[in-house]
């Protein structure tokens, strides 16, 4: 058997860091907006947690706190009408993709004005027209869907690419394997973004994998791949920006592993016996928001006061969203069997 195509899996770190310029060349306004998005995610989750405690969100919710740099950095590196697919821990991706906080919060409260008219909830928020192909309650469930969206992009030559988010746990799903292989043999424009937050529910990555880096799986598909610091939004932005160009120019799929950490329990019922308070503390010290804020402060793009105002503005937005959500009506019972078929 001959070597089939040029070996692609080797990416030099310099390929990515060479283009530090990418982030640098962003308009100041956008750089600041990225901070605001991170705050939006952080505070959206805080409000969500409160609703859970108060019993107004009755289902399960998976909070994205601590992982903000990955969603925001990656999605800001895409074109506006590129596609994303998200996960059960999807609020962050959704917000970064520009979703309306009101309609998100309303959905979580199961109200008629939510993104899914109250039918989907946290794990199914989608906004197909803006390219958000949806959260997914099935771990890894969106990996092949993202791949299919990339097939559309390739067939229609519409210039779009797909960013597919999934967790470390999802990288052991069978459809991960089938989908990445297809993307590779068909050179599909999709960036697989593995959010390695160290655990799949209670299972540590070091028990569910026998490899040092999940991005090593690139070798199974002769795919370009790299592992980066998912808490460094600049690094995330630059990496995904670089690979977005790569995909868009027809060079095929990419596997990017973002190392990050979930601060909160897996879901509300999690007693977190599988990890230590110290471990959580170390990661909280690596807060991606603080880190990015310091970058902007250092660059003189914002002042301490600006920062406080941005955060206060976000808190105000959330207050509005909560109000909208609480005042919105529940769906009418006539709706229950609607929307099953087109």
């Amino acid at each position, binding site marked *: 058997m001959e070597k089939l195509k040029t070996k692609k899996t080797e990416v030099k770190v310099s390929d990515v860091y060479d283009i530090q310029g990418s982030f640098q060349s962003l308009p100041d306004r956008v750089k600041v907006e990225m901070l605001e998005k991170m705050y939006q995610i952080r505070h959206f989750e805080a409000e969500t947690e409160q609703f859970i405690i108060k019993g107004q969100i009755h289902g399960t919710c998976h909070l994205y706190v601590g992982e903000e740099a990955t969603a925001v950095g990656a999605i800001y590196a895409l074109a506006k009408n590129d596609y994303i697919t998200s996960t059960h821990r999807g609020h962050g991706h959704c917000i970064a993709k520009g979703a309306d906080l009101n309609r998100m919060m309303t959905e979580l409260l199961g109200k008629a004005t939510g993104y899914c008219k109250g039918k989907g909830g946290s794990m199914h928020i989608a906004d197909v027209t803006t390219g958000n192909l949806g959260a997914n309650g099935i771990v890894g469930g969106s990996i092949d869907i993202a791949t299919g969206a990339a097939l*559309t992009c390739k067939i229609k030559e519409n210039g779009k690419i797909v960013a597919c988010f999934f967790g470390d746990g999802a990288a052991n799903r069978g459809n991960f394997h089938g989908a990445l292989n297809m993307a590779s043999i068909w050179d599909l424009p999709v960036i697989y973004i593995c959010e390695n937050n160290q655990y799949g529910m209670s299972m540590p990555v070091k028990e569910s994998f026998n490899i040092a880096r999940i991005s090593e799986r690139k070798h199974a598909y002769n795919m370009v791949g790299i592992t980066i610091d998912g808490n460094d939004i600049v690094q995330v932005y630059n990496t995904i920006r670089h690979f977005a160009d790569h995909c868009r120019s027809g060079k095929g799929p990419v596997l990017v592993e973002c190392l990050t950490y979930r601060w909160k329990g897996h879901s509300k019922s999690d007693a977190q016996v599988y990890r230590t308070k110290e471990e959580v503390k170390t990661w909280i010290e690596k807060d991606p928001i603080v880190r990015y804020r310091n970058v902007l402060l250092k660059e003189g793009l914002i002042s301490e006061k600006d920062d406080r105002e941005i955060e206060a503005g976000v808190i105000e937005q959330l207050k509005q969203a909560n109000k909208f959500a609480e005042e919105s009506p529940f769906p009418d019972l006539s709706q229950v069997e609607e929307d099953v078929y*087109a």
Partner: protein
Amino acid sequence: MDRKREITYLEAIREAMQQMMRINPDVYLIGEDVAEYGGAFGVSVGMLEEFGKKRIINSPISEDALVGVATGSAITGMRPIVEIMFSDFITIAMDEIANQAAKIRYMFGGKATVPMVLRTAGGGGTGAAGQHSQSLEALVAHIPGLKVVMPSCPYDAKGLLIASIEDNNPVIFIEHKLLYKNKKYIEHVPEEKYSIPLGKGEIKRQGSHVSVVATSFMVKKAIEVAEILKEEKGIECEVIDPRTLRPLDIDLIIDSVKKTGRLVCVEEACGFGGFMGEVAAQVAEKGFDWLDAPIVRISGKNCPVPYSLVLENDMIPGHDRIKEGILSIFEKA
């Protein structure tokens, strides 16, 4: 146009795909060995030549990802036709079928469509044993969001497949292996594109004594048995082919039962938990007042499909078992 043209079930299916692909550039065919090979049963032979590699796509052996990929392409504007070689393998893609394709629209609050057709070859009688011979329609018919179609003849196959490709929902289209190239059942199929609405059954043979609901290849057997019963016993069976299991044309069935007072259900699938339970249950609820006799189901026996021809013939309902089943209802009544 040759009005008398008679073609096989397989040719009818191929023609439906070809005609839709000519009209609509968003339609493509994807599946294992569908390109050069023309699919395991030869359904897509020649299509690679006409439509090229971009629209007739060979898939690696990854049924789960295959259906997921088709789903993802469907929500973003394509209209995939997925071929799953044997219907037994839908089990591998069951999550993509039942938890993704079927539910996306509802879970998204109606804000996505999944116009996908999953074509697959069902049924036994080929000596291919337990993992290549099943009739698993009950597994998909139970899932809201899916439509399920099982054509029993070339005319229906073409019209229903066109309707399925035009439909904006995921449709599971189950073909029968013994019908594909069956010369006995060739029939006139118009060359022009036509469609048969999903959800409309058809009375394949009029009769007044007993309503016989059958699906797929069993429709053919039921019609043949009906002729025998007419000859031998003067019994007139009304043979009803629902054609689509979901949505089910229950009114057609109930109307027939109102006329005959008797219902026999014939399916190739294992009886226990099979689809005909649904038909029987609906009639036992909505048609109860017109029933003069117990509802009889004639189904595959409750075991995997055995390899040996003698056992397989016994497991799958044959003419004799159908005949006895129908006769039993007259004894019981």
